[in-house]
């Protein structure tokens, strides 16, 4: 059982709040919830919507199909009417408009008018949610708790009044399976998960310049800054942001910066600086469709080739693209450890789809998290005089924090000798390049191969290949096709650079495979080709700024390879 409720209207009508309240109630009723947001780059007006999808089973994808459409204006009805199946129903404010035509069921209710009658214009959404709870046969108890935690006094009273009134207006028309009541489950967005990861991972300095869809992380950390002694600074521009973070990291604290593609462009030189100075740094690039300003509030996987190659010259870096919200948390912590252990820039490649979607995840356990600061040394006694860029077996030099009595530390953006002083000679240059690049070999070994799901690859008809947050929709599509008799495997890449070795190489050389990317040119595909996979049999792509959904994947694979089973 999967159920999808869509709340649509214009910016400023509070779709997000309504969606979040509903999601929280469902979460507490024991459901797995997945929410996604579709919004325009404006503050008022236009058309936005939020989806709240729930099920007793875990899930991490949106869907094309809507079961209940809460249309806060007529435009929402016009735009989304076709997403409602025959069983679907549109809920609307009957004083505002009335949905014309055949098709889905309709339920009018007084929202604005009733809200004003109760005395708070803002509670129209809560009224509608009361109605929706009734339609779904859901208990209001959890929802009331949510409201009680959020509001108090008169405002709370009015909310509860509205909720009850809306509930009374409805009929139970859907029968949904009961939630399983998983203990400790939380509803977290990708951006918050990255923020939580940074928090638990020990970030002490976060500098950024606001840029959708990365601002959520900045907001989250700012909200926690005082409590956890995290210095969160809004920089004058992204160049300052990355250079501040590097300064902080050189100073010894864990530092991170975050942005989207345009801001990442401005950070490029700083990425190289992290590379040559061997300063640990985690950089979040939350992708949105480009080029340039592009579609600020939408999603795309368009920056993969860019972040792998960003900055002049050659130096090692790591690129991780979390598969989902839970991974966003753990991979952020891992990124911080990798940055410290290998003393280099680590890029977390997220996107608007992941960042803005909320997903139920089992509670994150900070106790399970290890902080590994790598070769950070506590005293200079280990090396006298201290050599910041000492040649070592593995290319990683012991790292001293400036401030140690009797010793000094020098980092340099020019080519340098072991002490960090500028050099120009051919021999030292070559050795330093080798020292830096050498680390790539070790790193490559600890990169995790893509997750494989499905039947033994030998028995699969096709192998699906995806990366990052596309995992959820592709996996949902694959499972749905399995039920239709398809035999499909699925490799989903999370560790992207350096590209991990593994069975996938042989499998893709021998089996027909389907590449699925949320971009135009197939950027992971190009990387795989460099590893000898050849071209995919089918390339399913999307570059309209919207995320894939599970049912879309199913439909498009069927279109491409014909019906099975």
């Amino acid at each position, binding site marked *: 059982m999967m159920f999808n409720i869509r709340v649509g209207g214009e910016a400023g009508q509070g779709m997000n709040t309504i969606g979040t309240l509903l999601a929280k109630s469902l979460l507490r009723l024991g459901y797995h919830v997945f929410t996604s947001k579709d919004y325009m780059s404006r503050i008022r007006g236009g058309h936005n919507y939020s989806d709240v999808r729930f099920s007793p089973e875990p899930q991490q994808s949106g869907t094309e199909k809507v079961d209940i459409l809460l249309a806060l204006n007529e435009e929402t009805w016009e735009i989304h009417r076709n997403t409602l199946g025959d069983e679907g129903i549109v809920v609307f404010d009957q004083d505002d408009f009335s949905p014309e035509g055949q098709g889905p069921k309709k339920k009018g209710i007084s929202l604005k008018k009733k809200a004003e009658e109760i005395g708070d214009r803002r509670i129209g959404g809560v009224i509608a949610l009361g109605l929706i709870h009734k339609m779904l046969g859901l208990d209001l108890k959890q929802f009331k708790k949510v409201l009680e935690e959020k509001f108090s006094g008169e405002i709370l009273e009015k909310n509860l009044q509205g909720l009850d009134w809306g509930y009374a207006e409805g009929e139970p028309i859907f029968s949904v399976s009961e939630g399983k009541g998983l203990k400790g489950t939380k509803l977290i967005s990708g951006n918050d998960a990255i923020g939580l990861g940074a928090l638990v991972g020990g970030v002490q*300095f976060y500098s950024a310049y606001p840029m959708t869809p990365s601002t959520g992380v900045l907001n989250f950390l700012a909200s926690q800054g005082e409590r956890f002694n995290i210095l969160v600074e809004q920089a004058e521009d992204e160049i300052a942001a990355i250079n501040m973070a590097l300064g902080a990291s050189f100073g010894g604290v864990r530092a991170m910066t975050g942005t989207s593609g345009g801001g990442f462009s401005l950070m490029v030189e700083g990425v190289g600086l992290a590379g040559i100075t061997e300063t640990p740094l985690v950089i979040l690039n939350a992708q949105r469709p480009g080029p340039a300003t592009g579609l600020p509030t939408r999603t795309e996987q368009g920056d993969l080739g860019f972040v792998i190659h960003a900055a002049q010259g050659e130096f090692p870096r790591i690129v991780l693209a979390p598969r989902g919200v839970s991974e966003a948390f753990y991979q952020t912590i891992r990124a911080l450890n990798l940055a410290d252990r290998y003393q280099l820039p680590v890029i977390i490649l997220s996107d608007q789809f992941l960042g803005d979607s909320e997903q139920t995840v089992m509670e994150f356990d900070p106790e399970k998290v290890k902080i590994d600061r790598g070769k950070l040394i506590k005293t200079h006694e280990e090396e006298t005089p201290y050599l910041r860029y000492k040649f070592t077996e593995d290319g990683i030099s012991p790292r001293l924090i400036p401030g140690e009595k009797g010793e000094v530390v020098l980092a340099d953006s020019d080519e340098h000798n072991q002490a960090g002083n500028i050099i120009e000679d051919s021999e030292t240059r070559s050795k330093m390049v080798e020292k830096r690049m050498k680390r790539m070999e070790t790193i490559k070994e600890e990169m995790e191969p893509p997750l494989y799901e499905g039947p033994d690859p030998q028995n699969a008809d096709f192998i699906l290949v995806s990366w990052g947050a596309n995992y959820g929709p592709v996996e949902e599509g694959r499972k749905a096709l399995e039920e239709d008799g398809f035999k499909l495997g699925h490799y989903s890449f999370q560790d992207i650079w350096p590209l991990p070795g593994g069975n996938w190489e042989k499998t893709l050389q021998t089996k027909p495979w389907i590449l699925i990317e949320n971009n135009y040119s197939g950027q992971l595909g190009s990387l795989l080709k460099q590893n000898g996979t050849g071209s995919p049999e089918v390339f399913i792509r999307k570059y309209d700024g919207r995320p894939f959904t599970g049912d879309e994947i199913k439909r498009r694979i069927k279109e491409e390879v014909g019906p099975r089973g």
Partner: protein
Amino acid sequence: MVEKKEFQNNEEIAWCPGCGNFSIHATLQGALADLDLEPHQVVISSGIGQAAKMPHYLKINGFNGLHGRALPVGTALAAVRKDLKVIVESGDGDIYGEGGNHFLHAFRRNPDLALFVHNNQVYGLTKGQASPTSELGMKTGVQVKGVSNLPLNPLLVALAGGASFVARSFAGDRKHLQEMMKEAIQHKGFAFLDILQPCVTFNKINTFKWYKDRVYYLEEDHEKGNWEQAVRRAQEWGDRIPLGIFFRQERNVFAGDFPELSREEVFDPRERIYCWPEVLENFK
């Protein structure tokens, strides 16, 4: 007592013989020693250019970063490492040109650091193009008809932008320079010191003599807390160029309430996470 020679290292200095940078280099060591600062207690963040090579020629902590980006690096260092004295040192091209935006916003943020700009009114390392402070009419390989952009008056801009310490000195007057450096380093907040520095190779206009003939000290009774007076004096340029502290004011510094981190907190920052469940409360 710290001695000057504790800051010496053995690097070959790549500046031209006669360059004004040599005296700045020597003076800085004197200033630090005078303040009883040991090499490990100071960190220099620099950009790229001749001036920016400074950290290589001293035994001192240094982050020699990108052209134009010394200030952000220094700003963060000052915030997270309250136990260190942070000096940002670079050229006029670096700070006023490529790095102009950071200069502008440093006034507002007021990080606790000293900014020393070796202002030779030219791009030295890249062979003599005009810098933001080059004189009108100065001819170079790029400005073939002579500089036509109005020279920037960095002191005036700093005053207008809200800088809490604004001063000028001259590489040719080591005594004064040392005094100014010490004042700047001791200032709590963003201390901006513009240092007139002859470039013997590329700036044939603003030579040692040119500066020498013009500089004079702000009077003893110049009111350092008087912004309007500072603005008036900062306009002087040409025949008479005042040296000294134009303006000084105490103000909240950047991240002043961010605690001084213990060694332990640096090595295991997770120690700080004492109310995790409470954070997760928001997500149910």
